[in-house]
């Protein structure tokens, strides 16, 4: 699955705004780079100098603990100076501040900006206003590319390859940028992707986006290699999209009975943070089939790979 470094062209994009627009080759290149980053992260001396002298800004309009921490560590392990900016979206006039903030930050000459925003397309909008490289850390219900990459890396390390696997993405597909990015990536790498959820939580036209649609966990999980659970936001549990937590867990929560219809060696994933007892039974989350903790580790590695790949396009960088 590893691409030949001699023939591999350089990752050609200046920004990472989504999985959409990446070729399978681009994706594999990032995964291969991430494998190296895993090695770095497992050493005592977890430091490279690729981004020495570079400034990375983590600009989060939505609060996030793990993604922001993951990007921060990734930047620091590559030697960058990392600054975190959390802009609570309630305290600002949203769009105006987005563009204004972009211009302001741009004037401080950063090299990389990592952005999370509640609005789909907002990161792309920001990327058009600045001179540096921009990484999408989640834009509304649109994309979350580094999550899909870390999921792919986790799967590949455990299953050897992605082609031919049956991956079931379960739960709130409608509101999930993780599901969208994963759907595009897994299709690009040749997996069979299923989505499972109540129809109120499935986007219109998802069947035309490369997913087999199921509304029953029992049917959808049959022979699955990977079971990917999604978080259900609390405000969507009580009658707006599903009637109650109790009913949701009964039909869509991952318990042993439902997991049993998947392949015996099926593995369970969750992008976090988890609602134990809502979408996933606690003992499954902590059990032998769970990859959830490994996903977190791969998150740092994938983000290091992305930062490194984009840094090749920075002005005056070598290899350009």
């Amino acid at each position: 699955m590893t691409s030949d470094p001699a023939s591999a062209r350089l990752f050609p994009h200046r920004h990472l705004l989504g999985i959409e627009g990446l070729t399978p080759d681009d994706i594999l290149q990032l995964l291969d780079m991430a494998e190296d980053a895993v090695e770095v992260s497992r050493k005592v001396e977890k430091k490279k100098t690729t981004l020495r002298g570079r400034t990375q800004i983590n600009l989060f309009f939505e609060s996030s603990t793990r993604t922001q921490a993951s990007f921060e560590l990734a930047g620091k392990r590559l030697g960058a100076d990392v600054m975190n900016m959390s802009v609570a979206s309630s305290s600002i006039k949203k769009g105006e501040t987005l563009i204004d903030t972009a211009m302001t930050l741009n004037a401080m000459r950063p090299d990389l900006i990592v952005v999370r925003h509640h609005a789909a397309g907002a990161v792309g909008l920001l990327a058009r206003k600045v001179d540096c490289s921009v990484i999408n850390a989640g834009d509304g219900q649109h994309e979350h590319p580094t999550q899909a990459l870390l999921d792919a890396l986790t799967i590949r390390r455990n299953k050897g390859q992605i082609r031919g696997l049956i991956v079931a993405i379960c739960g709130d597909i409608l509101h999930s940028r993780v599901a969208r990015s994963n759907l595009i990536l897994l299709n690009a790498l040749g997996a069979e992707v299923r989505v499972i959820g109540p129809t109120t939580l499935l986007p219109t036209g998802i069947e035309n986006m490369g997913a087999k649609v199921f509304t029953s966990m029992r049917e959808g999980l049959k022979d699955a290699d990977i079971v990917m659970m999604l978080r259900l936001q609390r405000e969507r549990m009580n009658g707006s999209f599903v009637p109650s937590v109790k009913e949701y867990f009964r039909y869509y929560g991952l318990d042993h009975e439902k997991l049993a219809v998947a392949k015996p060696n099926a593995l369970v994933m969750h992008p976090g943070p988890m609602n134990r007892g809502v979408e996933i039974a606690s003992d499954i989350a902590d059990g032998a089939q769970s990859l959830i903790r490994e996903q977190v580790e791969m998150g740092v590695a994938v983000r290091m790979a992305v930062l490194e790949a984009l840094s090749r396009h920075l002005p005056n960088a070598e290899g350009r």
Partner: protein
Amino acid sequence: MTEHRPLLIINAELVDPVSGKAEKGALAVQQGVIAEMGHAIDVSAPPEGALVIDAKGRTVTPGFVDLRAFVGEPGAEHRETLSSASRAAAAGGVTTVVCMPDTNPPVDDPAVVDYLIRRARDTAGVNMMPSAALTKGLEGHEMTEIGLLREAGAVFFTDGAKSVANAQVMRRALTYARDFGALIVHHVEDADLSRGGVMNEGELASRLGLPGIPKAAETIMLERDIALVRLTGGKYHAASISCAESLEIIARAKDEGLDVTCGVSINNLALNENDIGSYRTFLKVSPPLRSEEDRKAMVAGVASGLIDVIVSDHNPQDVETKRQPFVDCADGAIGLETLLPVALRLVHNGDVTMAQLLRALSLRPANRIGLDRGRLQKGASADLILFDPDEPFVLDPEILHSRCKNTPFDGARLQGRVHVTLVGGRVVYEYAGGHSVHHGRKV
């Protein structure tokens, strides 16, 4: 400039929306109305002091009557004034504009109607006419003083960009308005069903990660309204429909003989959801751009006359409200000044004839609000435009007269240019190759 100076347009291609016929000839204006026209006019001796305009073979038709434009005066003059909207209208071939009541304060009081009529008289070159709110404060609860507002000069009653959710309120308004012969114009959208939505619901919205607005949000409200018209015998116009299913509902209502008409926004005729591309906020409009099939159905509706009128849905939005992420930005696109060339696309594409287009842009909207405009007829008000239907240009938003530049046709290749606009027999706009000349209403 003197009032009612005689005027003679020569070498014109006269196109009459009523007959649909084109005739080469001249047109004479006296006392602000069309005095005579045709190939038989003697152009050798124009009346004393007459202004003679050589059309050079270009087309002369009645000016357009636009039943849906958001202006911003009073309350949002930084976005648009009656004066700036009037200049945009004149340059786009529109000689009568009905302004929406979504202002601040809203047009729910006869004093505001009176104010707008005076302001238009003093500052605008084209006929800027106010519509009034259907409910007080546009809140959808209590009907406005329909009689008094109408007496003050309100053209029709509408809550503008808002829908009246309460069926009882709508029923009473339709019933009460009938006694005054007043027309009710309604934005057909179920607000609960469309809440949070920012574009057409479907695969594209799913791909972009944007919340969608289902077509049912429109058809449910339209079906409800038709049922209420059937119940009340009211006079009703659906402001702007966007999907093929709505056309079927309109067709059934018309077959039944109900007093129902409908409009379509130029945006829904010229664009579809794919034009949104990567989150272009100037294409976020209400009703949303639908699929190409829906767009084609709308165009066919104009050709068949099932759709009565085309509106500009002119809605100026500035940087503050539009330069935002797609889900956060305001609805609306400006449309007055590009109305002629964009509408002509349908003719150039062979989808509608010039006569079909002109009926939807001038004759039928004029008829619907009881104006004797929109026709080339002796004695009709000389609200006329002279245009070249084929003249090509690339739209530079900076030259637009509107105070806001939120046009979805930014940089588009368009064909068709207005050269002269007359209102009441007076020249209010002349295109002079790159720069244009506006004439105020008053000396």
